[in-house]
């Protein structure tokens, strides 16, 4: 009997497995990369991580503010207002936009995005001077006055807008219709940023999402199709004439702009390729081989350091790993983000 209890206590000690270490905060936020982690739907685990080039720090928003960022954070941008640096974050399922002091990571304002009691679900954000445009999955674009952090305007666009791009005084909003399965939306709305009016809405191709404006009046748009028989395609749009100039079926899942080049991840070839936006010519050589990735989740480019950052979401249920590459595709660093790293803000952004 005695032996039995000795055995029990050994087992108890062994089984009372150690608690994981609580995250610590870095001493500074000036020099390093921020990653925004989407988390998982209804798990309240959206978070922000920071990598100072040596050490990775997780859950910094929570540590600095004593509360969680919320549920499903989709996008963030850095901006400067009156000489102070800020981050603006859209938190989709919590239906909030968070404004954060970039130097301290303390929240400056939390702006609720609701239509009465109905959540608007803010998805993406574009900062234009002292105001921010936020597209919401309820089919609207909200305008935030960044001087007093208040929502000043709501503009109705199409279904489930999922990306925006600014071209002079026009904001192009792609209406994905992502929740309209099986017939997704295919329109792009154009907002005049002076009058906040929708001046045009034109049809592109099924399920339009990410956009990049080249310096030559064109917008490159990824149309994601229906994930079944209508494949993903890259569209070139003549922004002034609101017309689709070309459609190239290509399994693109993420793209980024490097000068005149558009770099993209090809899902089938499991690598990063590029095309020239001035000459419209494809470069068939693979720039970065990402075939070792478990779950590719985004390609980002830091123009100050001329480095690519590619995210591996490790099956969407584990912490993301971020791989850093130079322009010739050589891996030079790796660090850990949080759960589903969806966006990065670099040191000089």
């Amino acid at each position: 009997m005695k032996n039995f209890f000795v055995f029990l206590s050994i087992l108890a000690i062994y089984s009372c497995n150690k608690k994981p270490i609580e995250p610590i905060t870095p001493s500074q936020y000036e020099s390093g990369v921020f990653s925004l982690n989407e988390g998982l739907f209804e798990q309240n685990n959206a978070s922000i991580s920071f990598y100072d080039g040596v050490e990775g720090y997780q859950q910094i928003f929570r540590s600095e503010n004593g509360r969680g960022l919320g549920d499903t954070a989709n996008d963030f941008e850095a901006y400067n207002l009156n000489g102070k640096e800020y981050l603006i974050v859209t938190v989709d399922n919590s239906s909030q936009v968070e404004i954060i002091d970039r130097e301290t990571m303390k929240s400056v304002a939390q702006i609720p995005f609701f239509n009465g009691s109905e959540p608007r679900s803010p998805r993406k954000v574009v900062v234009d001077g002292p105001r921010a445009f936020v597209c919401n999955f309820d089919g609207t674009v909200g305008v935030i006055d960044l001087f007093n952090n208040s929502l000043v305007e709501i503009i109705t666009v199409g279904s489930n807008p999922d990306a925006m791009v600014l071209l002079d005084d026009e904001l192009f909003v792609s209406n994905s219709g992502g929740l309209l399965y099986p017939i997704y939306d295919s329109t792009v709305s154009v907002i005049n940023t002076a009058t906040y009016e929708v001046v045009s809405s034109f049809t592109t191709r099924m399920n339009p999402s990410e956009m990049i404006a080249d310096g030559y009046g064109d917008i490159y748009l990824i149309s994601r199709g229906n994930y079944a028989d209508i494949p993903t395609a890259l569209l070139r749009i003549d922004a002034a004439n609101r017309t689709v100039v070309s459609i190239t079926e290509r399994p693109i899942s993420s793209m980024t702009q490097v000068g005149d080049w558009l770099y993209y991840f090809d899902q089938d070839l499991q690598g990063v390729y590029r095309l020239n936006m001035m000459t419209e010519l494809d470069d068939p050589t693979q720039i970065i081989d990402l075939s070792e990735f478990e779950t590719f989740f985004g390609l980002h480019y830091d123009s100050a350091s001329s480095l690519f950052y590619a995210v591996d979401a490790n099956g969407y249920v584990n912490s993301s790993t971020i791989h850093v590459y130079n322009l010739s595709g050589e891996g030079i660093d790796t660090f850990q983000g949080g759960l589903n790293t969806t966006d990065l803000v670099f040191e000089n952004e």
Partner: protein
Amino acid sequence: MFLSFMARGLSQDTTRHLSAIPVFAKGDTIATWIQIRSSVPHFEINQKQVDEWGAVDVGELVKILPGVQIRDYGGIGGVKTIAFRSLSAAHTSVVTDGFAMSAVRTGAVNLSDFELFGLHKVALSTGTVMDDLAPAASFAQANTISLQSTLFRSPDKMRVGMYTNLTSINAYEHGAYYQKSIGKGFFAGGQGMLRHGNGRYRFQHPDLNDGPELWRENTEMLSYRCRFAGGYSDKQTKWNISANYSNNQQELPGAAVLYNSSNDQTLETETLRIQSLYTRSFKQWKATIHGGYQTNYMRYFDPQYQNLLGYIDIDFNQASATGGFMMARSFRFPEEKVYFGSDIIYGSLDGSTQLIRPERMTNISVLGAKTVLGRFRLEGNLTAQLIKDQSILNTVQSGRKFQRLSPFLAIAYLPFKEKALRIRSFYKHSFRMPSFNDLYYNFIGNTNLEPEDAHMVNLGITYGYQFKNVSIELTADGYYNHLSNKIIAIPTKDLFNWSMQNIGETFIQGFDMGGLFTYQLKKCRLDVNTGHSFNQSVDITDRNSLTYGHQIPYTPFYVGQAGIHLTRKGYQIGATALVSGFRYTLNENIYANYLPGFVDLNIGLSKTIRWKASNLLIDLKVMNLLANNYQVIRSFPMPGRHLQLRIKYRLEK
């Protein structure tokens, strides 16, 4: 274990003469033996335990058993599913009065659907079913929960039961049953149940340090059930027939999303079940035949969804029919017998958003034997499962067949003459068939899935000691489970394309122990029981993955429970506590996925009044006395401190 404790209480409950029973009456001792002699971990819970723990449904009740982990989404009518020794709900069959509940859609049975009022026995066993006349279908799976209704048992003359349960979290439950002997061995009865309330309660959001108290909203529920049962009983024959209907309308509280309290989803379910069971003994033979039919309708409605319609409205219809037989023949003594049986189960699913309408025909047969050889007790059985799936998609019919054999072998050994200490062991290899969701769910489903494999090994000791007015019982079981071909969802191309795959592998080892101590001094009785479970369940799917060797989600390393009750002259004062260690909410064992442990302590005072054939219980409890603000599932906060008052009346003559 406190098995015998339960068994004893059970026999107490079912004893029609309600005079005070000595702690160890002769009949009880026999019951004790049978439980402790069981060569697999087997638990039986009676009304006394139900009352002591203040449980309302089967999910709340079985969480007190060592090795059980209940995934409890909180609130009234919240979903509760079981994992036993880290084998998910799909490895556990639920059998009510011989009818194996169908769960073809998700594979998991929601245990909050079974209220405890009107049940006279709840049992959980692992490895094999303890009752030889249980349906063949229940032998196939790793674990079985079996429920037995009061109305299935023949009364002497009549039975009346009434029950009400009121809580300070606005959840109420009322029930009544009546059963009468109508002569010549025939009996008939009916039961009605009502569960209602807005279920609102306050909670502290764990992701807001020092945040304000919030309200758990959108929790209203109205549910009613009724059951009619009749039967015939004599020395050789037992026959039962029953019809069950339940209608459930509830708001779904959903996850407690930070900064966004909007929640408007509702769920509506309607179930109809008819079943019949016939048992006959002749000489050394005993035979059972059973049959049943069940339909289940479920409708989910979300009035705020950002699609064109602006809402989601989906429904599912499931139907299942079952029939089968079981035969047993005993030889030199009742414990030496051979049994065999076979069940046929049909299941279908039709959903408004499903493109496919799948059907499944299952045949499960079992052949087994047991005997006692000197100091050894041996039992073995072999279960064969034949499954044929058919589905129709756009008039194209496709099919799939599965065939599996599950062996089970148990050996128990008595090392000493006085029989106080017993060693038991078993091995079982079982399978979990892919559910219709796994196989056919739009886009995600994978029709090439194979069944999930579970190997289970158990080695344990049981010990019982009785001396005058003291009794002690202890059980301790170490186990090892190996789960392969585990069905998990993995992303394929992107976030929009997931697929179910047989790629998971889990190594599970653990230790469950239980203890019971009873002391009777004159009219005073002290009961102490405790259970402790240690569990290490690690992901061994992929050596190169971030989570290789990590504890799987929602699996605490330690869970313990204890109860202490003092009874005198019908008054009982007691406390029960459930302690859970920390868990992880996802595969990766990091702080971000850390969910703290909790203690759920309840205290209660009750009075039982008996006169003639009547028995009245008035019971007041303070639930979650420490006002621990805890979650079993991340984002689903549980109620804080609240009161529960229950009144139960029973008349049997």
